[in-house]
């Protein structure tokens, strides 16, 4: 084949590029602006102590949001993460006495399998992920209540999970370090393998992905597996911090996790986004939660401010040139 090369000058204006690059950094910028604002409001905020406390609080949320991000990138949503994490805290607390150090991997494995079951139901029965995981949320919450006897399960010997509650170098909470490593690991795997293409194509346009021979169903089930595993890991972090498991322990993390994903700028419609963005988003959400009371915002106004900032943050971070449908 000999085809004459007829390259034409670029059709895309050069102006679009710096703008594109900037939206990539928006989650970080939003985070920095928030820290600056909190510091201005209360100069005592920016201390090692409060940062350590905030990052320790953020760790389970980061892990939950990172896992669920994959499902969102595929164009779905996982509403069961918090309920699954609660159930996992109960299972961990119940199994720690018998299994010891093995309890952690077993719980993460069980959570992964539960994620896989939901993912499989979603792709095989062709039920929207919203519905499947809404059902999952209800079922898992109820199971947690049943197996826990509707009460907190105390952990007497927490030596097997204690390591997660230590501090690296005395300042950085181990759980936070693990959360960052998890995010980095997911990001790395996506970056160096075809998975990124597959997930994005599935999220942007499932029919196009299917007709290109992409293993769409496998990719979706895989995303639910990771989401489940992350919920299990978040549960381990919660147990290590609270010395107990509880059937509703993680339930209040669902909406913050979803908020973290969207504040990071990941499109809720799928395709565009990343786990790094969710890390930044989770930090923003956590700082709002712990920061607003610290700087003395009255609790009645706290929720108003929280809501306003979330919406403004998404307005800043979402790269609309990459998202066709805003719904």
């Amino acid at each position, binding site marked *: 084949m000999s*085809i004459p090369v007829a*390259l034409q000058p670029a*059709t895309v204006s050069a102006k679009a590029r710096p703008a594109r690059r900037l939206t990539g950094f928006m989650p970080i910028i939003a985070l920095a602006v928030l820290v600056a604002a909190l510091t201005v409001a209360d100069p005592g905020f920016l201390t090692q102590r409060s940062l350590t406390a905030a990052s320790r609080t953020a760790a389970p949320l980061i892990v939950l949001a990172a896992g669920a991000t994959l499902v969102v990138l595929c164009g779905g949503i996982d509403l069961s993460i918090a309920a699954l994490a609660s159930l996992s805290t109960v299972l961990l607390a119940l199994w720690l006495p018998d299994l010891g150090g093995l309890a952690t991997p077993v719980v993460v494995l069980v959570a992964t399998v539960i994620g896989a079951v939901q993912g499989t139901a979603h792709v095989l029965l062709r039920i929207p992920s919203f519905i499947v995981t809404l059902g999952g949320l209800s079922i898992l919450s109820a199971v947690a209540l049943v197996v826990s006897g509707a009460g907190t399960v105390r952990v007497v010997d927490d030596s097997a999970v204690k390591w997660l509650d230590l501090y690296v170098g005395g300042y950085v909470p181990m759980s936070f370090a693990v959360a960052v490593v998890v995010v980095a690991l997911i990001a790395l795997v996506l970056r*160096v393998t075809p998975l990124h293409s597959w997930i994005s194509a599935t999220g*942007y346009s499932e029919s196009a992905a*299917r*007709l*290109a021979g992409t293993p769409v169903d496998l990719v979706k089930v895989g995303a639910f597996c990771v989401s489940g595993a992350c919920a299990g890991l978040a549960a381990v972090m919660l147990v290590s911090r609270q010395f107990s498991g509880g059937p509703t322990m993680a339930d209040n993390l669902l909406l913050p996790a979803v908020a973290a994903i969207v504040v990071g700028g990941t499109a809720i419609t799928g395709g565009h986004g990343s786990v790094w963005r969710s890390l930044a988003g989770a930090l923003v959400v956590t700082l709002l939660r712990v920061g607003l009371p610290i700087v003395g915002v009255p609790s009645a106004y706290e929720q108003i401010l929280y809501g306003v900032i979330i919406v403004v943050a998404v307005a800043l971070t979402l790269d609309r040139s990459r998202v066709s449908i805003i719904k």
Partner: protein
Amino acid sequence: MNASTPALEVRGLVKHYPGVKALDGVDLIVRQNEVLGLAGENGAGKSTLLKALVGLVTPDAGEIYVRGEQVKLRSVVDAADHGIGMVFQEQSLVPNLTAAENIVLGSEGAAVRRGVYRWDTMRRLAQEQLDKIGSDIDPLARTDTLTFADRQMVEIAKVLRIEERSQHPPVIILDEPTSVLESKEIETLFAQIRRLREFASVIFVSHRLDEVLDVCDRVTVLRGGQSAGEVATAGAEPGELHRMMIGSTGSDDHYHENAAAPVTAAEPRLSVRGMSGKTFHGIDLDVAAGEIVAIVGVHGSGREDVCRALFGAEPTTAGEIRMDGKKIDLPGTRAACAAGIGYVPAERKIEGMVGPMSVAENMTLTKQRARCTGPFVAPRKQAGLVDRWIERLSIRTPGRDTAIGRLSGGNQQKVVLARWLVAGDIRLLLLDHPTRGLDIGARSEVYRLMRELAASGVATVLLADSLEEAIGMADRILVMNDGRVAAEIACPSGGKPSPLDLVKEMV
């Protein structure tokens, strides 16, 4: 207004879309109480023109006159106020409402008082409309219990509401009304159209030229966004219309027939036996290496579904598919890809490409191994591969990392084609309207690429955009009619059949 003033006149209408001139100065006259046929190939500008007439498309230039007065049509409501209404190709009735509700929907008038339906009034209004067309459909029947033909009558009755609205004889546009009807229902529809002529003007669009000649008084032919001429239907032949639709073929080798290589392979590459599905039955099909086989047929002939079934994207109920003698298990697009089958979908923007993803990612989406070392993406390998194909297919793009959605249609299509070529293992290409929406230059490049691929031994199944394209590109043509292969026509370079030979089998 006197009797000779046209009911509707269009002068020099122009509409550009990025990369395409959909309308390039169309003129059209619809006289009072006349049934005007509108004919033209796909892409000739028919639907754009109709949309402009009902206010769905704002033309870039040109004028529209209704009963001698210049008008600007900004919306469907605007058009209705001027007495222009359209029965859409896809039926636009709400299935779980009654016929009466559908008829008054959007122009309730006296049927609604203080926000509440007055059922008696509504029924009376609907009955008035149905009486106009002499239909005995029960206005209180739920729409989804009616036959297709009856629903069409309801649609016509609904459109006739504009007569009360504009207080003038209406202009009714029927866009391919026969495509979903049985032959007996078509007779009823034609009787209805002749009845409409008593008090209205009608624009009738159909792909079936015999129908156009049967029911219309006059036909205007569109070609390439322009008016190619008009024909009085009395005594006219379908062939005459068709020649106007496709124009003079000219002597330039648009389809690169000189590059057509003779097919010599003894064994078929693709061999399909008795393949049946929801819309097709007992399909037998052989395609040799290096051969281009076109499947032609009217809308609803089932050819699109056959093409998708070959790729495993449409379920089959019977039959077997062999590639080079080896049986492959479909459905499932993965199995087809693994067997060396590639598919270029008709809906490029929705199914063919992932718009926000880069040229490189789109090009390597299927054959991941071509850019990977082991399980990992090798950035240098990918860059080299993608750049090579960008150059080889002369894809005009600022770079491999540009989002494919920013390229022009022709270049997007080349990237989608390249997707199947990068691994060098393609054996059969299924091209579903590969030149849809492309301009002449881009079309020609796609044709040349098809020739080169055929010469290198790739078997091709082509669903062409037009009969002319099918005849120009194919070595052999299968004519499908109502889900079955009606005829197989040899189409060698130098011995091409005429479009009429095909049309004969299609209808």
